[in-house]
């Protein structure tokens, strides 16, 4: 078990956006078949990390290896082959607005397979049923709420039954009921299909409930990592504050600024 190499291996990753360092040498392993969660304050670069894994951005130094292949060095063709085996749920959903819900979920199937239309129909309905939106198949994306759009995007991300799936904030905008269903669904999809899952999320409780392993990121570094149970008992003040959502502690709520009182008194 331990000898099996991780599906995603990130080593010494450095990345910056126009001079601003987002990652300053991070190491992450995503174990095959498990659910790994990546958490951290808003703006630490969680979405950017997923884009690096998917090959949409290139690291300044260090490497990202997926299934043994270094993503940034793949030819365009090999990269696209790899992406067919990765599903990704975008933070915004990113549904194609000129296609109906049904056609959105059918999109990857129609682009990459030559399945007959009846089979595509059955597959799409199965995926939509799983996210509870089979009845919404004829709606256009503009007619969906944010939470519904994200569930459709989830159905689309699993349409090709990928080996790995990356969820960017799957829970935000979900009511308690669909939240509960989604949490279970993500775990079930992972276990039933033998997939590897990466979740990026702020929702500490839901994520900790299904994740096998957690990475906490902040200011370009991995602050701590381990199983949820171990992190709950962590001695680090930072980890305790983040996991329990305490207002006071080493994690600042405010973007760096001069003292508030001083700024108010200034003319």
């Amino acid at each position, binding site marked *: 078990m331990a000898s099996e190499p991780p599906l995603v291996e990130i080593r010494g990753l450095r990345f910056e956006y126009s001079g601003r360092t987002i990652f300053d040498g991070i190491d992450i392993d995503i174990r095959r078949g498990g659910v790994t969660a990546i958490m951290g304050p808003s703006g630490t670069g969680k979405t950017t990390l997923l884009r690096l894994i*998917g090959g*949409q951005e290139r690291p300044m130094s260090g490497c990202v290896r997926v299934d043994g292949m270094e993503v940034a060095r793949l030819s365009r063709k090999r990269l*696209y*082959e790899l*992406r*067919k085996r*990765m599903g*990704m749920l*975008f933070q*915004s959903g*990113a*549904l*194609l*607005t000129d296609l109906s819900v049904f056609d959105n979920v059918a*999109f*990857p199937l129609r*682009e*990459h397979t030559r399945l007959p239309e009846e089979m595509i129909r059955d597959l799409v309905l199965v995926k939509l049923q799983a996210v509870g939106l089979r009845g919404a198949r004829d709606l256009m994306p503009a007619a969906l709420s944010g939470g519904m759009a994200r569930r459709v*995007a989830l159905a*689309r991300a699993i349409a090709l039954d990928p080996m790995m799936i990356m969820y960017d904030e799957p829970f935000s905008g979900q009511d308690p009921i669909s939240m509960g269903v989604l949490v279970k669904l993500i775990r079930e999809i992972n276990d039933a299909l033998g997939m590897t899952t990466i979740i990026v999320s702020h929702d500490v409780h839901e994520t900790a409930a299904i994740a096998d392993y957690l990475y906490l990121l902040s200011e370009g570094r991995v602050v701590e990592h381990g199983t949820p149970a171990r992190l709950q008992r962590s001695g680090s003040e930072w980890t305790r504050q983040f996991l329990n959502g305490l207002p006071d502690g080493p994690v600042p709520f405010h973007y760096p600024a001069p003292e508030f009182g001083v700024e108010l008194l200034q003319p």
Partner: protein
Amino acid sequence: MNQRITTTVLQRLGHWALGRLQRLGRGNLFLLHVVPGLPGLLARPGLMVQQTFAIGVLSLPIVVVAGLFVGMVLALQLYNTMVDFGAEQSLGPVVALSLVRELGPVVTALLFAGRAGSALAAEIGLMKATEQLSSMEMMAVDPLRRVVAPRLAGGILSLPLLSAIFSAVGISGGFLVATGLLGVDSNAYWSQMRANVDLFDDVANGVIKSVVFGVVVTWIAVFEGYDAAPTSEGVARATTRTVVNSSLAVLGLDFILTALMFGDNT
């Protein structure tokens, strides 16, 4: 002091020119990446039909109305001049030549830039701003092939057809005014036209113009959309730039093409 101003001006100018050249380079690279995707469209005619419909058929009303009025005005204006020389029986060929050689391709291309080019740029720019292009890439679908190539092909196919329709409607409009209002003999209108308009010298050259305009206008539109900053402001700028740049390109190219095609006759 004076020298410093000169240097600043030169610096600005150089910066501006470099920026322009860089854009031009990006635009060419972009085209280079899209063109290999065009043959693949033959395997999926549905995509192209859909885009040709969206781009071409929906531009039809404005092209037909504009063609009709341009033809009618042309007949009125030319008649007033030609009647002084006793040449009013040649109204047919003159209207036809003006339309087929010049006004058809150029006015249609300008209308096309405003009607279809702006829509293309806005559509692609918004798809970028809402991460739709990004999500396609992550689904291993190349947006240059799936989104840009069919639109480019649809535009290139549509403009020559629209130009032909514009000219045909314009000639009919001219006929209505000439025979109905001005009393030109209807037989003379058509027979003179047939005798004096050459299929290769005139019609084919007009078609070549409109093909060139179709490529340039659609290329500018899809490039501006694809290159837009992913914000509402970026999309707005891309739309404006599409209309301005492609209109200027059409007018400039028209002069060059006209000089090449008809310049040696004089």
